[in-house]
């Protein structure tokens, strides 16, 4: 078998290219539009949130004073549902536009068009269709697990002395099923990248592109995830130091006298300050930038897998 070219995919997205800041601008545009979408959602549902927040505070008060917690307000909650669905779909279309913009640049060197590369062109809809395939695959997997255990239960009724073998199979099956999920997810991970590279929906071609690359890709994804979790945890811990400092005396007073109203007032006094608003904004910005770097790195791994499969 011919030796495969080393993948070296983990940081492929950050390699030097002829133009700079294409991915940065696309990420900035995505974050800006995502925030705008969030703001539109909040504005559209503002009335419902007021009622839900009032119920939540009342419930906390009731829990602290040992009273009966009230039922959640069903009207405002139901009013949120259609907006949630709409925003979720819009959010995924936006993310598909972002992924398509990054992949076009990483795979074909194309940039621009729309808002810093984000547009509603054919590539975006191909990537969006890939998300639906993932949903379908996940649903199929859940059905497979349910069918497997139902079949096992039925077999156990007629297996007689072979039940012990069935038990062993049932015991090790979750591990096998997890391995199957990871294997399939890694092999199909570059589905969207494959579709952008070929200019047509080619999700399942990723299976051929990743042949012989499973371990390299899994290692790349693992390194990225570990790096992201470690850096995100450190950032979160650093930002939590002042929050903990303010929270500790309030928690101590809650434990000492259990006065929920006084505790709420103390929390408001402690955290509704310009310093904490600035801290929260800084944390949000750091978390969003880190998440963007992580997402771009993931797109890079998939793009690299497709490019190495295409190279002779």
């Amino acid at each position: 078998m011919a030796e495969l070219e080393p993948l070296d995919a983990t940081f492929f997205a950050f390699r030097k290219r002829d133009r700079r800041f294409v991915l940065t601008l696309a990420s900035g545009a995505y974050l800006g539009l995502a925030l705008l979408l969030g703001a539109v959602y909040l504005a559209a549902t503002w009335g419902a949130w007021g009622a839900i927040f009032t119920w939540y505070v009342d419930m906390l008060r009731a829990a602290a004073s040992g009273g009966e917690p009230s039922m959640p307000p069903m009207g405002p909650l139901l009013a949120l549902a259609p907006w949630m669905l709409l925003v979720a779909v819009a959010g995924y279309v936006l993310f598909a536009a972002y992924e398509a913009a990054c992949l076009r640049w990483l795979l074909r060197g194309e940039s621009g068009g729309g808002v810093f590369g984000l547009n509603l062109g054919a590539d975006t809809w191909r990537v969006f269709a890939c998300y639906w395939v993932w949903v379908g695959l996940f649903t199929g997997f859940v059905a497979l697990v349910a069918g497997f255990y139902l079949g096992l239960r039925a077999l156990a009724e007629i297996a007689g002395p072979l039940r012990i073998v069935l038990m062993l199979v049932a015991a090790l099956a979750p591990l096998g099923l997890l391995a199957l999920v990871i294997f399939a997810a890694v092999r199909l991970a570059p589905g969207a990248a494959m579709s952008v590279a070929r200019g047509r929906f080619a999700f399942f071609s990723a299976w051929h592109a990743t042949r012989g690359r499973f371990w390299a890709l899994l290692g790349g994804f693992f390194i990225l995830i570990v790096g992201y979790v470690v850096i995100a945890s450190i950032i979160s811990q650093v930002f939590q130091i002042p929050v903990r400092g303010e929270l500790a005396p309030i928690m101590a007073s809650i434990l000492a006298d259990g006065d929920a109203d006084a505790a709420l007032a103390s929390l408001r006094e402690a955290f509704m300050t310009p310093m904490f608003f600035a801290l929260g904004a800084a944390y949000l910005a750091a978390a969003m930038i880190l998440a963007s770097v992580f997402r771009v790195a993931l797109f890079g791994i998939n793009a690299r897998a497709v490019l190495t499969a295409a190279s002779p």
Partner: protein
Amino acid sequence: MANALNATFFAFRKREKGGVLLGATIAFVVVAVLMVGAFYALNAQAIGDYFTWATSLGANMETGKPGAPPPSMDMMMPPQSVMALGPMYLLFILFYYILLASYEAACLKWMIRGETGGVFGLSLGADTWRVYFGYWMWFFLLIAFYIVIAIVAFGLAGSFFAVAGGDPASNAAGGMALFIPVIVLALVLGLVYFAVRLAPASATSIARRKFAFFDAWAVTKGRFWALFGAFVLLFLMLIVLCIVLSIGMGAMIGINAASQVAESGQPQSAEGVFRMLSSPQVLVPIVAMYGTMLVASMVFYIALFGVNARAALAAIEDGKIQAVA
């Protein structure tokens, strides 16, 4: 055919410059002691508060009559200064592992590339961060292993209900009980196998001058038993030494304590016991033993680094990985 590994004592082979590993080790120990001292100095009040709180909580538990209400939440909660120790301890651990990574990188750089530099080899260069990130990889791989254990336990419980109908007296459940030790053994053997195959991850990253954690798998291909043997030998030597030292120290403390009891009678209080244990006749052997154990553990560390360095060098010789000059 691959070269013989002969890795166990590779770290102690004669090289063109002497004292490099010793210098790095002394620098590491000195900085580690300074870090521990700084931690205690910065948190002396909180550490004192912790002991006061723990003692009062213990005393409260002891004096509480059966059936009496438990101590209040206010008393159960540690003081604020103790609560603040948590993040400080995390910070200390974070810096300690950076120091350890710097030490490992210094030793590996010398054994693999023959390079020195920094403060007796210790530096905050790229190699240190490669080794440090490798520690995080180990941490998350261990979490992944725990997840595997949880999934197997979940599978066992699921099979008990799905196939044996939740009846512990059924034949299938009884037979299954026999498989559990086999499954546990398989998990432990799997852990050992992965640990040995990935052990030279830091050494591989140093050899390749880039983060190459999983390239250790290629490095150890066909070398599992040689590496496993070297690690077992080193662990056995450390364990035997610790046992011998503990027995020797126990005997010396016992003899000295007995002679003190013969001279001045049984101690009558906890302070008396503490005074007896802190007398030079007892304290000196304890300090000597812990000193010897510290030296032994540092020699053990270096020997481990040496095994991994040798594996990486052998992989370069065999063409399994490319060294970057």
